[in-house]
């Protein structure tokens, strides 16, 4: 826990963040984080989802302002008030979704916002020449500065992002899961570039879930958990996996999970046979029984959300998916809703809510037929049903006519789930990250709600990035990695440590096991 590096290094660190606190409404995202980065090193940032990694890098990028704490560069206190200020201080951030403009050329992207220009006219020759120089420095002289960025491969775009960072004379480059979109050989190329820039004295802050990558490229590791630093400056090569995983787990926040029922479950309602989604899911088979909660544990990009979307008919797939013997047709959500499925999507605001409309309208969106004859809505009945659900789900404030945008995340999520509880007869609920952006109190309520629904005979398929949530809530857990089920077990048979090991690929897995 004590900072080893500070004692070792004579000169002040290139970047030192001390006791950073950042509070959002309802959640303390950063609760005293320390980070210490030296020139020329690859510093890895590890932590589970929600540990505070992305908030920390946003503070570093000047996108968020910390509530307290200090940032020092070369021993001098600095203020990262805006993204531009951070850039001027030499901090360049490469986000997971690369922020490049596809329609512009490589050179135009690299110098976007700080163009070589005279009186507003860009000097294309100078821009292209400068870009070529940076690309050569990165060992990618083959990328032409005039090529349109949209035509490049993901790896090529990564190089351009890197070039853009270097064009700002960055001293610190933050990379958020840079390998997520890359194929294997592209990753080794990325590592080569990282080694080249660090050899020139630039520090790289590297975020990844893949431990083997961190061993290969990293120098030191900082581990975050629940918004706090739990280890600073561990040697990346020598720290045992075991220790890293232990540091990441064993959280302080205790979630209250409802007890599992003693009785058995009903018949199989959902069956998935040899289901594949192009590039994301490979030959997955499993089933869900009535009253059972099945949890899918896996990292972002492991294929877990794609499985849910395929089951819901919202995505093309091959193989066979049936609900109560009736086949799901790809691309036809109207049919799956008719069969008795309901979905609480991963991106609540973008995929789930009509933000400008009332709670009631959001609740009744999927079931208007229930109180309408030939398309004519019986508004009295509709209002009664909405009011009933607002009360039953304890949505606060208890006003069905309130615009849903003004509710907290937890109450919005209750409304999204409530959408599928209008009338009886929902058979299967698909819940993708049901507690994302939900505060601790409302979490317990949502857990209780999910369990209550299962007890009433609804089958539940649950996806969560938070391993304790999957383990605590599910009856059965499927661990997903790289589009395959790598382990299937009763929730009681697994612990957080094992699951994290499995999803992060800490050791090679043999054939996928179905038992």
């Amino acid at each position, binding site marked *: 826990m004590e900072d080893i590096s500070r004692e070792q290094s004579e000169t002040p660190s290139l970047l030192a963040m001390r006791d950073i606190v950042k509070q959002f409404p309802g959640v303390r995202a950063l609760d005293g984080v320390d980070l210490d980065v030296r020139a020329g090193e690859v510093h890895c940032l590890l932590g589970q989802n929600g540990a505070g990694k992305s908030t920390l890098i946003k503070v570093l990028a000047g996108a968020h302002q910390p509530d307290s704490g200090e940032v020092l560069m070369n021993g001098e206190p600095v203020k990262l008030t805006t993204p531009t200020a951070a850039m001027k201080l030499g901090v360049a951030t490469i986000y997971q979704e690369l922020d490049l403009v596809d329609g512009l050329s490589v050179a135009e992207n690299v110098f976007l916002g700080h163009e070589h220009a005279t009186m507003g006219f860009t000097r294309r020759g100078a821009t292209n020449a400068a870009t070529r120089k940076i690309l050569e420095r990165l060992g990618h002289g083959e990328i032409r500065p005039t090529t349109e960025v949209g035509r490049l491969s993901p790896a090529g775009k990564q190089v351009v992002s890197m070039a853009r960072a270097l064009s700002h004379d960055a001293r610190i480059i933050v990379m958020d899961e840079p390998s997520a979109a890359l194929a294997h050989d592209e990753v080794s190329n990325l590592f080569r570039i990282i080694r080249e820039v660090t050899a020139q004295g630039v520090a790289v802050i590297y975020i990844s879930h893949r431990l083997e990558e961190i061993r290969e490229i990293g120098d030191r590791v900082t581990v975050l958990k629940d918004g706090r630093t739990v280890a600073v400056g561990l040697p990346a090569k020598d720290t045992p996996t075991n220790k890293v995983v232990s540091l990441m787990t064993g959280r302080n926040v205790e979630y209250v999970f409802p007890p599992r029922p003693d009785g058995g479950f009903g018949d199989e309602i959902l069956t998935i046979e040899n289901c594949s989604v192009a590039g994301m899911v490979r030959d997955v088979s499993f089933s869900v029984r009535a009253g059972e909660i099945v949890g899918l544990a896996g990292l972002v990009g492991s294929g877990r959300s794609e499985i849910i979307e395929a089951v*819901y008919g*919202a995505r093309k797939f091959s193989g066979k998916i049936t609900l109560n013997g009736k086949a799901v047709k790809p691309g036809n*959500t*109207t049919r*799956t*809703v*008719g069969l008795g499925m309901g*979905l609480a*999507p991963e991106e609540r605001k*973008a*995929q*789930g*809510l*009509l*933000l*400008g*409309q009332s709670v009631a*309208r959001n609740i009744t*969106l*999927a079931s*208007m*037929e229930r109180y*309408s004859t030939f*398309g*004519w*809505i019986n*508004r009295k009945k509709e209002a009664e049903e909405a009011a009933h659900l607002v009360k039953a789900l304890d949505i606060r404030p208890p006003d069905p006519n309130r615009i849903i*945008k003004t509710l907290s995340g937890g109450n919005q999520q209750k409304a999204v789930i409530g*959408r599928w509880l209008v009338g009886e007869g929902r058979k299967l609920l698909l819940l993708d990250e049901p507690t994302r952006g939900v505060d601790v109190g409302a979490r317990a309520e949502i857990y209780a709600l999910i369990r209550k629904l299962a007890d009433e005979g609804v089958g539940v398929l649950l996806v969560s990035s938070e391993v304790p949530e999957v383990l605590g809530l599910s009856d059965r857990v499927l661990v997903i990695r790289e589009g395959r089920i790598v382990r299937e077990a009763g929730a009681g048979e697994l612990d957080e440590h094992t699951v994290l090991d499995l999803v992060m690929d800490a050791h090679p897995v043999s054939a996928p096991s179905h038992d």
Partner: protein
Amino acid sequence: MTEVNPQQVSAPKADETAPAKAHAATAKPSGGGGLRLGRIGEIPHIGLVLALVILGAVGLVTVPDAFATSSNMVSILALAATIGVITVGATFVIIGGGIDLSVGAVMALASVWATTLATQAYGPWVMMICAVLVGTGAGLLNGFLISYGRMVPFIATLAMLVAARGLAQRMSDRKTQLVGPDNQLIVDLSTTRVLGLPLLVYIFAVVVIIGWLILNRTTFGRRTYAVGGNPEAARLAGINVRRHTMMLYALSGFCCGIAAILIMARTTTGSSTHGDLYELDAIAAVIIGGTLLTGGRGTIVGAILGLLIFTVITNLFILNGLNTSDQLIAKGLIIVAAVLLQRRSLNAST
């Protein structure tokens, strides 16, 4: 004369504000201590109603003898009826997150098709059915290209605008086609009056009322708001977004067909030049009425009020003998002012 006029003007004004006040009362039962001014601001469309009242006052002051006559009121309504029907369809499309640029051209095509000698031979009812079918068909084609051909609405309906006008010119050989003497039933729509108003004003009113009911009281209307507000959420809630989008354009085309009947009645002709730039007036009316161009939000009442404002301005400029170019400038300013005011009230409410 001057004794009677103010009453005639104040009558529609009272009609507008009475239901609006009732609405505000139900929306805010506990608003006892609030400022009077603040409560007025909450009445829906209050700005538009005020603008109409001001325009009415301007008319009374500048051209008292010509403006507030019953014949002038009738001519304003008759003028508004044609674009008004189109505006109802356009409101649906825009709330649903789309845009229909082809409305004027489709109306022209429908009027030409319905007044060809071949169609006229079948009598006035077939002519009317023809106009509606042509309009709906063109709308369906728009919708199909947008929903299933995945074309951007702006492009697809722009293509339809150009092509429909071209087809109308071809069919009519660029000649104005008169409604024949056997088919005077159509012209009767503008000449026959009930309670002082020509029949086509009643048709306009019926279209507005039915449009309002569909938008506010049916699943189709609800889905329109959902599809425009968040298509992905709508799709994941089991709504067939593509089919619904196609239906919206078909509805817009249907309205163009009805508008074609009205313009045939008013001008006694079918012509490829009918409805030039109607799309801009319709879209402007919808926007002034508070409908978001990005979809998911808007009202028919607002759009119709917006249209009436436009029509009254046109009327005032004509009565005052002013330049039509100035009239366009005034309309442009009104669009900008309306949108700026709405943004302010939007920001205030969130």
